[in-house]
């Protein structure tokens, strides 16, 4: 399902008419939303915990340079290597050089949105390397040749039946929709990859500056295998994901899994500190931490800095009525849903349709309401809309219409005249007290909705008449 050549509106239209997709998204988001609500309701003071989580993240961003250097020093002191990468190309180059130097043929990879953001797989595959995604959801979409449709559940747009056909086709599984059989099939295929891989690439949920540990939050254990079985472990971390201390980490871990899946804690929470020590039987021989900027340092000082507070829980996607209607792929960027509508214009400004994303929101505020670090997503979307207008991206005629609106709303005489004209016009269009067909550019309203006629006499006119009557009576 490559949708790169479709416009945003075409992708939306396709998604809205894809019944299988609608079923899959509805099932997944309903489950996520319910689980999250139950998990948070069980906390004694959810609001205070979220305040703390926001404070921890805000503190880290305010001292990002200092904390990153501390993280880097501590990783190095534990025998790890740290590489600062300005963009995706720098990451691929570093990994490719490392892989070539160390004779790496197969790379096992655990889930990482940062690597998706920079299209790491394509870059490494183009250099002749083989990459095996090991998160079940990522594995499914890798087999399908797709991209993640959700930050936490990359394959939530797929139904069980679709996954079954993929496994039949690619893994020779006998037809079944029995989930344990399907997962066993995937485990057997993946286990071979783990044992053969020379390098494991992971993402990083958090990097703890004080301890030099990177934290992986996952449910399948594939993250542990990816980071311990192959002889080289490379972790790719967005620079904003640093936290100062284990105490700070404790706060974030309390909100992350609850907000994402409704779990108190994910099945596996791993703190990894460098390569295996000489006396340790397990673990990689080498550990490389890549600190990825990719536009984040530019965002940091500006009006969208709060988007960097995000801990990628996906709660805003699940609750969003727009995401629920169109799913993740329609957004067109790596990150989807409300936070994706903020991040994509900032991180992927080259995408032709990115300026539509901030407008694809009713600004209902449900995203902000569930955000564990209280990112004011609607406010950020509004700022991005202002940026889009300033960049000349408004629809043709829209700016002129807005100028006209301004003149009318700024002058009570024009406003009164406008009301009368609108009442006359709508009188021509209305039948039985409703308008069934509006003219362009408002015609899309009446595809499935009636529109109310403009009142013959405004409230203001009625009020003025009442005032005059009262004056006469007195």
């Amino acid at each position, binding site marked *: 399902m490559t949708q790169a050549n479709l416009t945003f509106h075409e992708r939306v239209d396709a998604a809205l008419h894809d019944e299988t997709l609608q079923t899959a998204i509805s099932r997944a988001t309903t489950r996520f939303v319910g689980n999250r609500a139950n998990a948070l309701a069980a906390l004694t003071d959810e609001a205070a915990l979220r305040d703390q989580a926001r404070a921890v993240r805000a503190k880290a961003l305010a001292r990002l340079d200092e904390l990153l250097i501390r993280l880097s020093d501590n990783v190095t002191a534990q025998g790890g290597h740290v590489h600062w990468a300005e963009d995706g190309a720098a990451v691929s180059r570093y990994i490719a050089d490392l892989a070539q130097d160390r004779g790496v043929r197969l790379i096992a990879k655990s889930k990482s949105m940062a690597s998706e953001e920079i299209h790491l797989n394509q870059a490494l595959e183009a250099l002749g390397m083989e990459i095996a995604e090991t998160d079940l959801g990522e594995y499914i979409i890798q087999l399908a040749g797709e991209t993640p449709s959700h930050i936490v559940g990359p394959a939530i747009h797929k139904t069980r039946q679709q996954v079954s056909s993929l496994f039949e086709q690619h893994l020779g599984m006998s037809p079944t929709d029995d989930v344990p059989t399907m997962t066993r099939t995937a485990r057997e295929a993946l286990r071979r990859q783990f044992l053969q891989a020379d390098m494991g690439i992971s993402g990083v949920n958090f990097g703890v500056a004080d301890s030099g540990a990177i934290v992986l939050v996952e449910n399948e254990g594939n993250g542990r295998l990816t980071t311990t079985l192959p002889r080289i472990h490379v972790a790719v971390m967005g620079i904003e994901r640093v936290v100062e201390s284990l105490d700070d980490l404790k706060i974030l871990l309390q909100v992350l899994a609850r907000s994402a899946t409704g779990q108190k804690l994910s099945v596996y929470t791993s703190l990894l500190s460098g390569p295996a020590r000489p006396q340790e039987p397990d673990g990689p021989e080498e550990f490389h931490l890549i600190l990825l900027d990719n536009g984040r340092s530019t965002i940091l000082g500006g009006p969208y800095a709060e988007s960097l507070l995000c801990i990628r829980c996906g709660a805003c996607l699940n609750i969003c009525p727009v995401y629920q*209607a169109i799913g993740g792929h329609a957004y067109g960027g790596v990150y989807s849903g409300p936070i994706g509508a903020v991040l994509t214009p900032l991180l992927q400004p080259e995408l032709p349709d990115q300026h539509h994303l901030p407008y694809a929101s*009713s*600004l209902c505020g449900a995203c902000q309401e569930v955000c564990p670090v209280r990112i004011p997503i609607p*406010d950020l979307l509004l700022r991005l*809309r202002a940026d889009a207008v300033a960049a000349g991206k408004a629809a043709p005629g829209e700016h002129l219409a807005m100028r006209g609106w*301004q003149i009318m709303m700024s002058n009570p005489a024009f406003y009164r005249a406008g009301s009368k004209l609108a009442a006359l016009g709508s009188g021509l269009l209305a039948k039985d007290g409703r308008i069934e067909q509006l003219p362009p550019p408002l015609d899309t309203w009446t595809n499935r909705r009636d529109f109310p006629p403009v009142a013959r006499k405004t*409230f*203001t006119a009625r009020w003025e008449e009442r005032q005059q009557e009262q004056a006469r009576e007195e």
Partner: protein
Amino acid sequence: MTNRQSGRHAAFFVTCLVDNFFPEIGEAAVRLLEDQGVQVHVPRGLTCCGQMAFNGGHRAEAYAVAGRTIEVLRGQGDVVLPSGSCTAMIRHLFPDLFRGTPHEATAAELIGRTYELTEYLVDVLGVTDLGARYEGRITFHDACHGLRFLGLQQQGRTLLNHVAGAEVVPLPGSTECCGFGGMFAVKHAAISEAMLARKLANINSTEADLLVVGDASCMMQMAGGLSRAGSRTRTRHIAEVLANMTGVRG
């Protein structure tokens, strides 16, 4: 029943949508306030809070219109609006719009005395029973901006629970957006319609005679959908229900 507030004055900001599409809502709101002994006045020349331009990203135009509105409302005492959305524009978004401008202080002062209608009745005037009567089944939709940016959740329900004769039934998914979103409803009509379809299914499941909403904007969306679908459920603003004016419009 009534809790007369002698000597209290309020400026009524009818909002552009109510003024032009549903003047009866404005009249109902004024009646509710006057019944409580509030001296209502309508400042001359009020037009719009500027939200449409602001939400569209047209900040210069929004600034011009909202800046003028701030000046019209200067020194007018409490300001009451029959809309959670326009109230939220003032209270929640004016700070961003006017930050670092000559209007910043005036805007901040206005924010402190601006109220949504049900909030003003319940939280400021302290009344809950307005002596309204409605024979039938009512369900209530939480309009997003009032709910999430003003924290209005109980005010409307408290007032409706005191309507004599009315059976108030909960609306499943009452806090889910109806899909209006201003120009979103036109620019991304297909998504807006999908959101509306879910809302309509929930409304239909209540078998209510009356869908009650606190915002004219959401009313347009849901009433438009119900009307197109030929539903018997009518849509009314909460002020119309509380002022016994549900029969005024068709």
